[in-house]
């Protein structure tokens, strides 16, 4: 019985794979009128090229994120916006920004940036106290602007390359370096445990609310540009944005 079941399993996997990759066309494939090799030797000009060895998988995940957004995430964000008054939403967003200043302080320090580290630390101290657990952000009104730092930037600061481009489920565009950074930042947060998740079970609500707040702030919607090259443009924009953040 077992081998037969295995064979059945194997063939269904193969069929599924064939469906995923698209069946080979039987029509003869001709030539294109204009090919890149008519203009330049392929591979000679690598400017703006972004390493993407997992492109087929990334594109599948890009599509997955679209469906996740359409059927779950965005409706959830909309419901949240509908139910929660704007004023409360702002307090919640400000609360998460304050928590993020721990990450900003930590990574500013790792990059040996005294000004940025000092700003983030002062912001955290002021907003946690005067700003009532970060629900308000008096530090910004006093001229202490947010310094966005994360471990991906810290790695970049010390010369670590982007590595291959990755589209993460739910999180979206990233690369190997920044994904590692995300994991390290998450690990540090769990070690510091500022909200004492060790002793309570608020962590699920915390992460859910954090996800909703973050998505709410991001106006990007998958496939809405209508450009056939949206994936390629986003890939480039992500790299450009991170290059700027690392340089800062």
């Amino acid at each position, binding site marked *: 019985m077992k081998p037969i079941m295995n064979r059945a399993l194997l063939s269904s996997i193969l069929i599924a794979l064939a469906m995923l*990759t*698209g069946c080979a*066309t039987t*029509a*003869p*494939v*001709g*030539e*294109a*009128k*204009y*090919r*890149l090799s*008519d*203009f*330049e030797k*392929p591979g000679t*000009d690598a*400017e*703006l*090229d972004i390493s*993407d060895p997992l*492109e*087929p998988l990334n*594109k*599948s995940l890009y*599509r997955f994120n*679209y469906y996740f957004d359409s059927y779950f995430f965005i409706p959830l964000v909309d419901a949240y916006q509908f139910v929660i008054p704007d004023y409360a939403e702002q307090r919640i967003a400000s609360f998460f920004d304050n928590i993020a200043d721990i990450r900003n302080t930590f990574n500013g320090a790792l990059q040996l940036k005294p000004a940025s580290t000092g700003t983030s630390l002062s912001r955290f101290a002021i907003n946690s106290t005067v700003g009532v657990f970060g629900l308000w952000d008096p530090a910004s009104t006093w001229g202490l*602007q947010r310094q966005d730092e994360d471990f991906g930037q810290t790695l970049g600061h010390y010369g670590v390359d982007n590595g291959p481009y990755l589209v993460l489920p739910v999180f979206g565009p990233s690369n190997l370096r920044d994904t590692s950074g995300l994991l390290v930042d998450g690990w540090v947060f769990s070690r510091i445990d500022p909200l004492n998740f060790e002793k309570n079970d608020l962590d699920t609500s915390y992460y859910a609310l954090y996800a909703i707040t973050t998505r709410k702030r991001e*106006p*990007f*919607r998958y*496939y*809405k*540009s*209508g*450009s*056939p*090259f*949206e*994936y*390629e*443009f*986003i890939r*480039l*924009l992500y790299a*450009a*944005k991170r*290059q*700027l953040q*690392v*340089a*800062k």
Partner: protein
Amino acid sequence: MIARSFFFALFLASLFLGMPPAQAAEKSQRYPQSDPWLSTILGTPLDERAPYLQDIPTRLIDLEVFPDRQVPDAFWYNDRLRSSLAYQEGKAPLIFIIAGTGAGFNSDKMLSLRSIFYQAGFHVVSISSPTHANFVTAASESRAPGILRDDANDLYRVMQTLWAELKDEIEVSDFYLTGYSLGGTQAAFVSKLDDEQKTFNFSKVLMINPAVNLFTSVSLLDSMLEDNIPGGAAGVRRFLSRALDKFATVYSKGDFVKFDHEFLFNIYRGLPEAPTDANLKSLIGISFRISSSNMIFAADVMRDAGFVVPKGYVLGRNDPLDAYLKTLAYISFATYLDDFLLPAAQERDPALTRQALINGSSLRAISGYLDQSQKIGVMTNADDIILGTGDLDYLRQTFGNRATIFPHGGHCGNIDQRDFAAAMTRYFSQP
């Protein structure tokens, strides 16, 4: 949205080409209204803009224009035409707005126009340009945009289909039509069509910064890239990559809070010296080529024309597209005209010549109609960079007192400027 952010990133970067980083953000400069290139890129500073309304009651509409059309798997997300209706409570005039070359129904300029006309009390229907990939895929009959008569037919079909869907939901007192850039030119052709078919009987039509001859304008835009980037099309990626590196250096020294429209002006005001015209032209040229690449690729796949994608090849959802994108950076609109559009049009009309095609895609082809039709007006700028020699005079002569010409603003740079916005609204409000 993406095109915009991309464009901004490129723009910001290119400003810093060849500039010593340490000096940036020291001196301040006033916004020069008189530079058409700069106006075209920067748009209107915040304090001169018409009040912008963000929260407008709007319905998004995904329209099935051709129920029988099989959209290739690779373009699954573009099978329906996306458009929007901003609606008033109660009876009001309805205005259709046609987007400019490559722009979608919710591009920046479309949102500005929606805000302006909504505040004037109109229902506003926003329609993507027939050159936008979504339109080419879902709503173009020929799937080869660029022939004004065909594009007008496609637009008119879309308007009729939209109206059939909306007429039970809103009360309409009157129909207006407008469009900017190529959308302005198309508005004139749609108006002529409507005079024959009489679905809407538009009482007012306004062309905003229209092209007089499509091919004159696109040739001007083509040459902005080819004449100003070292190495022409071959130098595009090097130009952008160098610009980005420079910009990263400058950005790291400055104190910028976030990327938004004002950020552009802050950067600009902080520049130690004005960017060169060549850099500004390069940028406009690149932006245009990105638009035309999207359009040509969509048309190529939809027609299986074998232009940059091999004929007969079925593009998969996960196929890498880099090589096509890179190839299209070399393809000018003129090349598209000669090797794609003309052959496609000759399939229907073998006698059609190149010159006849070009002549047909001009306001001059319907001069008699424009001359006599009192309901059509034009608003543009004397320094609009897409107008060729004699085009401005042509508009003045043809439209007489129905033409409003502002001295500065480049191409659509002042579209949301207070005076310009007031003049647009006035045009529709006056009897």
